[in-house]
C-alpha cells in the first residue's frame, strides 16, 4: 500500500527540527509552571502527551497524498465559514471574546483551524490560476474575497491576533505567486484608510490600549503595558548565560503573565540567556528555511503553494510571538509553535508539519 519511495524519502530533518523545538518547549514548560500549584497532571506532562499525539497526527497526514486536499479544499472552506458564523451566533464566551464552539462532546476553536484551511484554499485557487507577469488588482479580487470573509468573521469575535495571522499567511502565498508593482502600490493606497477605519470602528478598547501601550509602554505600567515591561525585564536580565534552569526570578516569582503559554519564550530567555535564545532562534530559522526548501524542490505547483503556506503560518507565529515578548510587536496573544503550552496550537502546527512531510516525501514522484 505505501510506496517504498515514501519511506526512503522520509524527511528526517523536518521531524528532527520539530522534535528538538518541542522537547526544549517541554523542558521550559516544566520550569515555567514550577511555581504553580496544581491539581491533576502537570503542564509539562500534558504537553508531552500533546507532542506525542501531534507527531502521530503528522505521520497520519503525511501518509496521505496532499493532492486530495485540493478536492476537498472548498468544502473545508465552506464548512469552516459556517462554523465561524455559528461561533458568533451560539459560541462560548470567555474573557470578553467568543472563540469556542461547543459541539456537545468537545469544544473547538474554528478560527484556529482556519489558519490551515486558508492555506489549502489559496493553494487550490492559485494552482488553477495562471497569471502572466504577476497578479493584477483585478486578478486579486476573488482571492481577496475568499480571505476577507473569514478574516472579518474572526475579527468580529474579536480575535485580532488570529485574523492578522490568517491575512499574513494568505498574503505570503500571493507573494509567492508574484505581484505586479502596480498592484502593491494600489493596495498600499487602499489599506491605509482601511486601517484607520478598523481602528475607529472595529477595535475594542483593550486592543487599542495594547497598541498604544506598545508604542509607549510607560503609558500604563499597571495595565496592559505591565506585561511587556515584565517580559522585557525577564528577557534582559537573562544576560548572556541566563540565570539557570528553574532559577529565573521573574518566572519563578510569577511576574510574567501566561508564562507557560504566550510568554514561554520570556521564561526561556531569562533562564538560558542569549546563548539559549540564539540556539532556539536558529532552530526556528532552520525549520522555516527547510520549509521553503521543501517548496523549492517540489516539482508540483500545488505542493509548492501548500509548503509555502504552511511555512508562512509557522513563520508568522514565531516572529509575532517572539517579537511580542521582546517588545517589538503589540501583545496579540499568539502562541509560539511547538514551544508554548497548548493542545490546539500543537495540533494545528503538527497538521501543517504533516502536510510539509507529505510534500517532501513525494518530491521525486512528479
Amino acid at each position, binding site marked *: 500500500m505505501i510506496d517504498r519511495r515514501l519511506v526512503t524519502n522520509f524527511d528526517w530533518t523536518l521531524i528532527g527540527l520539530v522534535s528538538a523545538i518541542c522537547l526544549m518547549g517541554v523542558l521550559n514548560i516544566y520550569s515555567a509552571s514550577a511555581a504553580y500549584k496544581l491539581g491533576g497532571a502537570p503542564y509539562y506532562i500534558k504537553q508531552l502527551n500533546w507532542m506525542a499525539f501531534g507527531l502521530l497526527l503528522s505521520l497520519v497526514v503525511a501518509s496521505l497524498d496532499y493532492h486530495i486536499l485540493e478536492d476537498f479544499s472548498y468544502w473545508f472552506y465552506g464548512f469552516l465559514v459556517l462554523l465561524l458564523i455559528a461561533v458568533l451566533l451560539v459560541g462560548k464566551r470567555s474573557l470578553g471574546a467568543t472563540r469556542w464552539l461547543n459541539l456537545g462532546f468537545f469544544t473547538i476553536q474554528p478560527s484556529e483551524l482556519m489558519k490551515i484551511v486558508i492555506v489549502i484554499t489559496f493553494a487550490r485557487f492559485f494552482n488553477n490560476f495562471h497569471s502572466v507577469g504577476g497578479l493584477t488588482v483585478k486578478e486579486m479580487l476573488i482571492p481577496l474575497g475568499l480571505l476577507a470573509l473569514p478574516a472579518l468573521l474572526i475579527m468580529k469575535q474579536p480575535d485580532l491576533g488570529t485574523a492578522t495571522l490568517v491575512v499574513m499567511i494568505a498574503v505570503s502565498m500571493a507573494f509567492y505567486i508574484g505581484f505586479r508593482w502596480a498592484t502593491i502600490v494600489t493596495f498600499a493606497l487602499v489599506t491605509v484608510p482601511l486601517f484607520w477605519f478598523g481602528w475607529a470602528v472595529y477595535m475594542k478598547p483593550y486592543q487599542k490600549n495594547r497598541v498604544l501601550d506598545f508604542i509607549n509602554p510607560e503609558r500604563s505600567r499597571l495595565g496592559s503595558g505591565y506585561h511587556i515591561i515584565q517580559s522585557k525585564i525577564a528577557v*534582559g536580565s*537573562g544576560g548572556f548565560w541566563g540565570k539557570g534552569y528553574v532559577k529565573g526570578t521573574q518566572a519563578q516569582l510569577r511576574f510574567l503573565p501566561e508564562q507557560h503559554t504566550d510568554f514561554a519564550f520570556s521564561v526561556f530567555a531569562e533562564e538560558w540567556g542569549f546563548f539559549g535564545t540564539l540556539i532556539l532562534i536558529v532552530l526556528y530559522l532552520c525549520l522555516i*528555511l527547510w520549509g521553503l526548501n521543501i517548496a523549492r524542490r517540489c516539482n508540483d505547483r500545488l505542493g509548492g503553494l501548500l509548503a509555502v503556506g504552511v511555512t508562512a503560518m509557522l513563520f508568522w507565529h514565531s516572529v509575532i510571538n517572539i517579537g511580542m515578548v521582546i517588545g517589538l510587536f503589540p501583545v496579540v496573544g499568539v502562541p509560539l509553535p511547538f514551544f508554548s503550552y497548548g493542545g490546539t496550537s500543537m495540533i494545528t502546527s503538527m497538521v501543517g508539519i504533516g502536510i510539509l512531510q507529505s510534500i517532501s516525501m513525494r518530491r521525486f514522484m512528479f
Partner: protein
Amino acid sequence: MIKGQRYVRELAQPRQRTIPLAIVVTVLFFLLLLRLWYLQIIKVDDYRAMSENNRLRFLPVAASRGALMDRNGTVMVNNRPSFSLSIIPQEVKDVEGMLDRLAALLKLDRAELQERWEKTKGRARYYPVVIAVNITQDQVEIVEENRLRLPGVEVSVKPIREYAFQNSAAHLLGYIGEVSDKELDAPAYSDYNPGDYVGKNGIEKAWEKELHGSDGGRQLEVDSRGRVLRVLSESSPTVGNSLVLTVDSRLQRAAEQAFGGQAGAAVVMNVNNGEVLAFVSSPTFDPSLFAGRIPTDIWKKYLEDKRHPLENKALAGQYPPGSTFKMLTALAGLEAGVINENTTISDPGYYEMGGHKFRDWKASGHGVVNLRKSLKESCDTYYYMLGEKLGVDRIAAMAERFMLGKELGIGLQNEKKGLIPSTAWKLKRFGKKWFPGETLPVAIGQGYVLMTPIQLASMVATVANEGTIYRPHLVKKVVDPDGKTIKEFMPETLGTTGISSASFKKVKQGLYAVVNDPGGTGANARLWDVKVAGKTGTSQVVKLGEDRKKARKYEHMDHGLFVAFAPYDKPEVAVAVVVEHGGGGGAVAAPIAGKILRSYFDLQKPPTKQKYAEKEEQEPAEAPVKRQEMPAERETEE
C-alpha cells in the same frame, strides 16, 4: 495510490521566489536576534537591577469562619484572634540562622520551626510561610521589640475557634486544624495554603465549604528594602456562612451531665421531623486543643482512656441492640399473623430447640406471658418462640423496613451502617448456611445484630410516629454573615414502613408498660408529668457461659441500652441511650434517658415555671400517682 497525476501542474516561475522569501525570513529573524542582543547583552545590567528590585509580596488576610449556633440562635462556636508567625523567604538570606534566633528568642521548638519551613518548599518566594501558629501575646511583643533584628519576619492575626461551652458537643461540632499535606493535594482544597485552618471532623468538616469563607489578601510591590511601592491588587476576605443547628445547647449539656462521666452515647430526636436535638458521645474532649499542637500529656491521656473520648460513639459506635430490638421482632410477628396481642406462652425460664436450651435472663421464668408482658418484663423466651416461628429473614425484612443496616445519611463523616443478619447475608459473608439456632439470639437483638445510637433513636422515633422514617439531620439552616437565611433544610422522609397502625398500637402499649406498669424494666425513666414509653436493652459483650460470671473487668461488662419516646399519647421526642460497659439497661441507661426527657420537657415550659419543675425532679419515684392529673395542668401552663 498515486491517482493524482491529473492534478500535477508545471511549476513555472514561483519556485524561484522561495529565494526572496528566504531572504525576508532570514532578515526578520536577524532583527529578532539583534533585539535580543540589545536586551540581553547591552542592557543586561539595567534589566538585572530591575529584576532584583522587582519584588512582589503577598499579605494574606484570613477569612473569619462562620459561627455554629444552636436551634435557638445561641452561639456554640465562634472565633477569636490568634497570632501566628511567618517569614517571607525572599527577604531572609540565612533562613537557618533566622530560625535559630527565633527559637532562642521566643522559646519555640527549633525542630518544629524547621519542619514547617521545609513543608513549603517550591512555593512563590514572596508568599509568607507560616512557621508557628497560636503564639502568645507575650511572644508577639518580643517579636515587635526585635523587629529590626528580624527582617522578613511577620506576625499575622488569624481568627481561630472559640467554644462557648468548652467540651460540650465536641463530637458533633468537630474541630479545626491546620490543613494537612494530603488534603492540600486533593482538588477540593486547591484554594488552600499551608497554615490555613480547615474543619477536621464533625460539622466543621462536613460543612467546610460553607463555613470557611474566602481569604483575601493584598498583592504589593516592594523595593529591595521591603518598602511598599504600590498595591497591585487587593481583595478583602469574605466571612464564611454560619449554620443554625438542630440541637438545643441546653438539652445537649443536660444530656452530657446525665452521663456523669460514664462512657456511652445518646441521641435525642424530634419524632415528627428527624431533627436531632442532642447528640452526645461521652466522655467528650476539648476541641480547642486541635487547633494548635496538642500537648503530649493530654494526647496520651485521651489515647489511653479506656472510655475512648475521641470516638464518636453516637455515629460510629455499633452495639448489639439487645432487648430494644424486641419491638421489631414483635412487629414482625404481628404483621405476619404469627401472634396477636392475646397469644400467650408459659415460660419456664428457657426455650428448648433442637435439644438445646436457650436461657431467659430470668432463670425462674416469667410465668404466663402475653405480648404486653413480654415487652414489659423483657421476656426472652417469648421472643425465642417468635424467632423460631418467624425465621431470621422475616425479622431482617422488618428491620429493613425501618431502614436499618445502612446509613441514614446524617451528613457527617464515618457514619456506620450497623448490621442486620439474614440467610443471604451469612451466605455472602461466610459462605455458610444459616442455622435455625442462630435465629433465636437475633430475635432478642443479640448474635450478629448491630446498631448505632442514631439508628436506635430512628427506630424508636419511627415506632412513635407509627411508620415514617425521617432522615436524622443536624443543620436547620445556613445563614450568611448578615444573618440572612441562604438555605433552609426541610424534614426529609426516607420512607414509610407500611405497617398497620393497629400493630404499632399494640407494641406501643407494651412500651408504655415497660416504664409505667409495676414490674416494668424501665421504671427508672418514669416522669411524673409526662407519659414515657420505652424499652430497655442489655447487650452482652462476653458470650454466655461461665466466663460471663467471672467477667468483672470493665471491658467485659455489658452495655446498657434504653430507647424511649414521649409523650405516649402524642409523641414529640425520641431518645436512645447507650451506656458502654455499664451493666443492665434498666439500671444504668433508663435513668439517663429519664433525666434527658426531664430537661427536654422542662425546657418547653416558660422560664418561671422551670424552677418549680426542677424541685419536683428530685423525687421522680413518687411521681406516678400524680402523673394522671398533670397533663391537664401542663396544657394550661402553656
